């Protein structure tokens, strides 16, 4: 038996619904249809009245989730695509994210963002929104890269007393498989050493983890041992694990699928440069998507975002310097 990343998300929601009567799911097409990606397949049938189709109203979807959370519920909001969370942005960052600070009323809502690019999806069905949400205080931002993390982190997202932006990568939905669901998990907020090495640290998260691991495998045949750090959550950011890795390797490459300006890779490099400059043997580098809207055609798309090939080239440059 094997289970995909998408099925893990479905199973986590089924478990959350089964274990906690406060949980409900709200989003477009999530009910009888089972969601645009089938992340809620059969849940409406299994949990009658608790998996609710919403109008196409992202602001009101998040607003209602906040109200329900104030009343003690634990809503999961499915955005059909991360890109469509922008009409709900105001409620997320100005309301959900400020509620506890202002009123000491917790706001335990989970907002699932099907994120990242897939071939042919174009500018409005491909975005990675994690950095823009992480910019605001009062939210936790998760970016699971494995089937196991997709499952366990989503369950933890629902259990956390704060708003969680859960960035699940669409490219991993069907491609990534595991033998079984995990029974235990690392704590939220801790990064994971996905592969140990001594020559270079690659920090990655979400789908880019797998590109980084492929590069590490490829470069090991050339005699280079790359350490790959999977951030898992980007807020809070586990600076300690990154810094410890850089202390071992002296070289840092940070990879993100999102745009470069002010994003996760910029934050990681800023932290290492300000808190661990002396650990670096050479200037740190980063790779991001190009600073344009995300292109439709596969020829353009595959060059727009970092790939194993471009990451390998950057890694070799760092290893040579």
């Amino acid at each position, binding site marked *: 038996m094997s289970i995909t990343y998408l099925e893990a998300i479905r199973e986590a929601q089924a478990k959350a619904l089964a274990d906690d009567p406060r949980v409900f799911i709200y989003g477009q097409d999530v009910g009888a249809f089972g969601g645009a990606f089938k992340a809620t397949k059969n849940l409406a049938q299994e949990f009658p009245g608790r998996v609710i189709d919403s109008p196409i109203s992202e602001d009101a979807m998040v*607003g209602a*989730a906040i109200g329900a959370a104030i009343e*003690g519920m634990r809503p999961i909001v499915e955005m059909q695509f991360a890109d469509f969370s922008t009409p709900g942005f105001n409620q997320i960052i100005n309301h959900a994210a400020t509620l506890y600070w202002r009123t000491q009323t917790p706001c335990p809502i989970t907002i699932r963002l099907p994120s990242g690019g897939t071939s042919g999806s174009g500018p409005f069905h491909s975005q990675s929104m994690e950095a823009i949400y992480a910019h605001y205080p009062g939210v936790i931002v998760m970016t699971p890269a494995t089937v196991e993390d997709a499952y366990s982190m989503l369950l933890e997202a629902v259990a956390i007393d704060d708003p969680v932006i859960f960035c699940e990568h669409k490219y991993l939905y069907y491609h990534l498989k595991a033998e079984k669901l995990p029974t235990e998990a690392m704590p939220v907020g801790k990064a994971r050493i996905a592969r140990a090495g001594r020559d270079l640290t690659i920090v990655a998260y979400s789908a880019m983890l797998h590109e980084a691991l492929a590069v590490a495998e490829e470069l090991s045949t050339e005699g280079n041992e790359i350490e790959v750090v999977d951030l898992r959550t980007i807020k809070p950011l586990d600076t300690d694990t990154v810094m410890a890795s850089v202390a071992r390797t002296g070289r840092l490459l940070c990879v993100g699928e999102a745009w470069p300006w002010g994003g996760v890779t910029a934050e990681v490099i800023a932290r290492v440069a300000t808190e661990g400059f002396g650990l670096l043997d050479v200037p740190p580098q980063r790779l991001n998507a190009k600073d344009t809207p995300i292109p439709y055609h596969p020829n353009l798309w595959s060059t727009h975002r970092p790939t194993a090939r471009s990451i390998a080239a950057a890694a070799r440059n760092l290893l040579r310097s």
Partner: protein
Amino acid sequence: MLQTVESRESVGSTLRDEYLKAFRFMILSRVLDEKLASLYRGGKIHGGVFLGKGQEALSVALGLALHKGDVYAPLIRDGAGRLAFGEPVVDALRTYLGSALGPMRGRDGNVHRGRPREGYLAMISHLGAMISVVNGTLMAKRFKKITGAVGAACIGEGATSTGAFHEAINQAAVEKLPLVLVIANNHYAYSTPSSRQFACSNLTNKAAGYGVTAHHIDGTDLLACLNTVSTAVKQAREGGGPQMVVAKLLRLCGHGEHDDAHYIDPRLKHSPVGRDCIKVAEEYLLQQTWADAAAIQHMRQDAVQKVDDALTIVQREPTPDPYRENWCALASRHLSEGFEGPANEIQ
């Protein structure tokens, strides 16, 4: 027959009691507003001061129609409704003066106050945003099988132009929620007149498009406000679905105390819509002989005393100490990047 007469008298006495109760809150709200304006002019308040002058009748009618267990999301000019819903005078003063002991503890100020866990929501500045939040509380009550509760959200005519308003009223209609949406059409959103805000003949038209019941009232007439708002709340409570109440009135002050409201058309000020609802209510009380001038004067003195007593308390209270602030925006402290230790733990 006798029974009918008795019940009619009892209805009359209930109405009189309700009217007098409402009037007392209106006076209290006006006195509190005047004190806030005075504190602002004296430089005692940081940031803005936003008053409810001219909107007390509508506001108080909603505050009184709500019960314990209902949800209330007041807006900027709902001082009277807040008091009627049960907010103590001291909470308003604590929030305006930034007392560390107030509900917002200096982290937020002025009209941004509430106690969400008690059904009293703390507004954010983005207009229309509170409506869907009230919807969510009502959906939660439905999940919890709590019946008979309503949720009320207050906005001005300006907020009916926001996307949040349209999304939320549609959501309430689709979910058939017991939402009461009270719109104070005070003719100006800051300085923008209604002619630049909407083109429909009446804001109640906006309800029709969503299948929502609408009520229209003269917001300067306390009796009309009490009757209509309580009817709308009752209909929502009894399963009639979302109700929209639109009241016409005029803001009798600036947007905030920093604003002299020079742009308000004098013709509006001198039209029926520009009447001061408190003066209208006072005349009605005298006309009905429900109160005489001395009784009204006594009510005013009582309000002044209440506000002065609360102010005396608040002025002695500590303001927030930045060195005892924990700088933590999360309930899950262990996941906060900014948490600065357990020094200040006010729960």
